[in-house]
């Protein structure tokens, strides 16, 4: 399970919404060993600016083809450049990085919001479809292109939107307590904005169910060397890039 640096060929890019794209790259060395929850560090340009690599979660893996995908939101300089990269061009990628999700659950519940849903695609893929349920939170129905991505990978989808334009109105916590009461789940996996993860973790912990969260911190190296991504854990410092990005919710003290 060692990290490698490869020039990955872009297989295709797909527009998922106004500002979200999916990119598939050919990189067998990474695809064959990447675990759900791990991420890669992508160099979008050889120029001095933008300088740093950008971290993206592994969203789907196709080991036969030797490819994997990333789903990204066009935010700033680097993602704008990434969005304009053509098929068959090469991008330099380091991966797989970090520590992924525990795959021991028998009846997993996935909870994701926004781009936090990206790594959950691969996580869902790794369980047997019948056993997985997902709660997806979004701002409006427009952002819920995710349903297509998850439809063949999960058993039940619970949808919430901030404006009620699809599913239940509110955040994921509008449906979560009810779901947890059923006692169906043996592990909850959460990825999304920090306030959402904190709120979910609280509810899940209260219900006595183990909960994994996937953190995001600004990263310079992605290799555990620079301590840019360090955060306070219970009794020790944690490096999000190597100790995480996935942690048990009870391990994290300073989110």
């Amino acid at each position, binding site marked *: 399970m060692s990290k490698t*640096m490869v020039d990955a060929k872009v297989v295709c890019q797909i527009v998922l919404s106004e500002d979200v794209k999916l990119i598939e790259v050919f990189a067998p060395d990474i695809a064959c060993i990447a675990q759900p929850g791990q991420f890669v560090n992508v160099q979008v340009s050889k120029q*001095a600016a933008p*300088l740093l690599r950008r971290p993206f979660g592994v969203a789907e893996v196709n080991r036969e083809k030797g490819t994997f995908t990333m789903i990204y939101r066009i935010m700033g300089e680097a993602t704008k450049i990434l969005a304009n990269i053509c098929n068959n061009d090469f991008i330099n990628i380091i991966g797989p990085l970090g520590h992924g999700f525990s795959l021991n659950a028998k009846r997993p519940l996935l909870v994701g919001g926004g781009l936090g849903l990206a790594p959950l695609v691969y996580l869902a893929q790794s369980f047997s479809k019948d056993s997985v349920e997902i709660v997806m939170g979004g701002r409006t129905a427009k952002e819920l292109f995710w349903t297509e991505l998850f439809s063949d990978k999960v058993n039940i989808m619970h949808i919430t939107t901030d404006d009620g334009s699809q599913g239940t109105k509110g955040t994921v916590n509008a449906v979560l307590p009810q779901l947890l009461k059923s006692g169906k789940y043996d592990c909850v996996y959460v990825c999304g904005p920090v306030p959402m993860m904190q709120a979910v973790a609280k509810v899940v912990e209260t219900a006595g169910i183990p909960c994994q969260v996937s953190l995001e911190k*600004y990263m*310079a*190296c992605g290799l555990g060397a620079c*301590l840019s991504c360090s955060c306070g854990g219970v009794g020790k*410092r944690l490096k999000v890039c190597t100790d995480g990005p996935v942690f048990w919710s009870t391990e994290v003290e300073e989110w």
Partner: protein
Amino acid sequence: MVKNLYDNRLAVNIGGLKMLTPVTTASGTFGFGLEFQDFLDLEKVGAVTVKGTTLEPRAGNKGQRAVETPAGMLNCVGLENPGAEYFLQETLPKLKMINVPIIVNIAGNTPEEYGELAKKLDVEGVDAIEINISCPNVKQGGLAFGTCAISAVQVVEAVKANTSKPVITKLSPNVTDIVEIALAVEKAGSDAVSLINTLLGMKIDINKQKPILGNVMGGLSGPAVRPVAVRMVYQVAQAVQIPIIGMGGIMCAADAIEFLLAGASAIAVGTGNFCDPRLAETISHGIIEYMDAKGISNIHDMIGKALPNR
């Protein structure tokens, strides 16, 4: 030790520290070296300079610690490290198994603390001490020592009195006259100087209308600062007799060569490690290629070549 690595054409001696290539790593950008083993052969690096170490463990700064800037980055890690004791017990044994000189970068709150730390680290496996008197990211000590010749001298003297290892003093670029500080630490007995540490900078989030970094200000590194670094090496090289380790924005062999021509006897790869984790190894090959193209047989024949009257 791979005795004739690079046919001995790149070997340099930095104030008593023998390196088989002039390429080392900048403290804080290469962890303890072990983090990069998937990408390069540490034994092909001239020396590994490890993360800044303090007497007691430090948690570092809160909030966001890094942010990109044009052709550079700001960091305010704030010397997070597990402390000297942990380093000696846990990390050093692992480093000893690798055949590469280890430079330990140290920081303290008082000259005495620097001395105590130097004494603690005066053990087998530590090959040189780099005194960090130029960290912009900690309140006590750090930058304050590096911007004043008198306090810089006190720290160097305290360290020299407590170690048998070569001592390298790392200079701050946030000064009016870096030559003055370099001359002072040379006189105080420093065996070499390294420069530059980061330039003090900051960035504001115009949406939140607040500084981005948790510590408000941070240290600027990367290619953006290279012209300042090369200039300072060029100035210091004309003033001191001790060897210089040059750094600041080295991203490829050509950049490293610029520092060597400016008078550095060795160079360190910093932020460049984040962009290309192989860089600290591949850069030596690039230097060899350049030497071959120019008909230069030994690295010493090019050090300082761009200085006046050479």
